[in-house]
């Protein structure tokens, strides 16, 4: 006869261990976080543990940030985390030059705020929108970099590192170039309105188009114009109309808002489908159908209907749905969705 108490006694611990293993395999950054906590307790006696404490703590938090950002944006905006590789003091000058190294200085883990800041700066300076960087307006690039570093620090609740960032980096940058502050604030407003993802997606796509080309001043200027265009949309009053099409050399987008109560009340997707087709007609590569506003349930439903219309059409295709909680014009946070539609270039037909 089966002794169920013995079966349970044996199987529950094993099931728990197995669940933890699966969880850590699926979330390696969480495993690193725990490893960091464990190694910290012995770091005073072991240099190896001290290095592991510093590295795993940075790797886990930056890894989690990049995973979330890439998932939200739906593109590889940042590399999948960071790996700290330690160089020892016995490295020779010849080896250093031969390998063309760049080595970041890390302090004792007691000064982890500085370490985290340096690792974040390094990660962003080389990994963030890596194909696009040379094609961005320098002010735009610097403002985006600063925003991204600040987001890594703030979303990981690194208050001391954030303080260092503002005091030693941001204030200097702002003093040297006031426009960096202007665009830093613009990007902040876009982020607040859930539109930073649009900018990141467009810049990511720009990198795909421009990757093999020489940097073009007109394209660089376009990236700044694009931020100005987005800023007008993000900061407009609800009843004010602003241009919703951006017709650049590389960046060509249309934005369709499903927000007006008088249209939303009808529950009819046709006017919005027509707006998408109009944008595709003038040559938009991407159309963002944004549902938000006071009648948000109806708006979201309409936007989803628009997405369904373009699930399998020859000229336009739904590529992603972004779901966000956003403030509705200085109010509390509300659900919002954005349907992202891409135009499909026509293949020339053979005679």
């Amino acid at each position, binding site marked *: 006869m089966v002794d169920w108490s013995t079966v349970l006694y044996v199987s529950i611990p094993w099931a728990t261990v197995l669940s933890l293993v699966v969880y850590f395999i699926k979330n390696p950054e969480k495993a690193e976080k725990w490893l960091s906590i464990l190694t910290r307790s012995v770091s005073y006696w072991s*240099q190896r543990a*001290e*290095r592991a404490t*510093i*590295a795993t703590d940075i790797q886990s938090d930056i*890894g989690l940030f990049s995973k979330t950002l890439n998932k939200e944006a739906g593109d590889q905006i940042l*590399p*999948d*985390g*960071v*790996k*700290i*590789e*330690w*160089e*020892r*003091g*016995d*490295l*020779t*000058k010849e080896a*250093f*030059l031969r*390998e*063309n*190294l*760049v*080595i*970041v*200085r*890390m*302090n*004792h883990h007691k000064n982890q705020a500085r370490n985290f800041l*340096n*690792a974040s*700066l*390094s*990660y962003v*300076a*080389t*990994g963030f929108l*890596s194909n696009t960087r040379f094609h961005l307006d320098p002010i735009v690039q610097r403002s985006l*970099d600063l925003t991204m570093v600040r987001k890594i620090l703030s979303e990981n609740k690194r208050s001391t590192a954030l303080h260092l960032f503002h005091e*030693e*980096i941001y204030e*200097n*940058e702002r003093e*040297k170039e006031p426009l960096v502050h202007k665009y830093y604030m613009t990007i902040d407003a876009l982020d607040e309105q859930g539109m930073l993802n649009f900018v990141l997606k467009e810049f990511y796509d720009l990198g795909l188009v421009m990757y093999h080309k020489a940097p073009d001043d007109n394209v660089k200027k376009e990236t700044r114009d694009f931020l100005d265009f987005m800023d007008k949309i993000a900061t407009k009053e609800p009843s004010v109309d602003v241009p919703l099409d951006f017709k650049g050399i590389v960046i060509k987008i249309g934005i369709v808002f499903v927000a007006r109560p008088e249209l939303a009340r009808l529950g009819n997707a046709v006017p919005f489908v027509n707006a998408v087709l109009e944008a595709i007609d003038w040559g938009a590569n991407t159309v963002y159908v944004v549902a938000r506003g006071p009648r948000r349930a109806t708006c979201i439903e309409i936007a989803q209907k628009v997405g369904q219309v373009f699930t399998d059409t020859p000229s336009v295709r739904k590529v992603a749905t972004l779901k966000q909680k956003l403030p509705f014009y200085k109010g509390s946070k509300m659900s919002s969705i954005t349907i992202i539609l891409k135009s499909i270039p026509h293949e020339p037909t053979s005679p």
Partner: protein
Amino acid sequence: MVIKKQIVRAVHDADLDELLANLGLLEPLGKGELKCGLCGKSITKEEIACFYAGEGEVKVSCTSVECFEKAMVKRKSLRG
């Protein structure tokens, strides 16, 4: 799926003096002659943010973000 992580090479403070000596930077540092390779400012040991290779020499960057970023982009391509 290939997971592409960005490599950041680092040196711990405990190894800093030995590294400075091996890279031939301890003497100029002692004489107060070590300068940021990007902005030219004289720097102390505390102000070293990173080491990078430039013009056939090992150089150091100060903690200014502008200098630090310029040094960072000199890194080789990402390694997965």
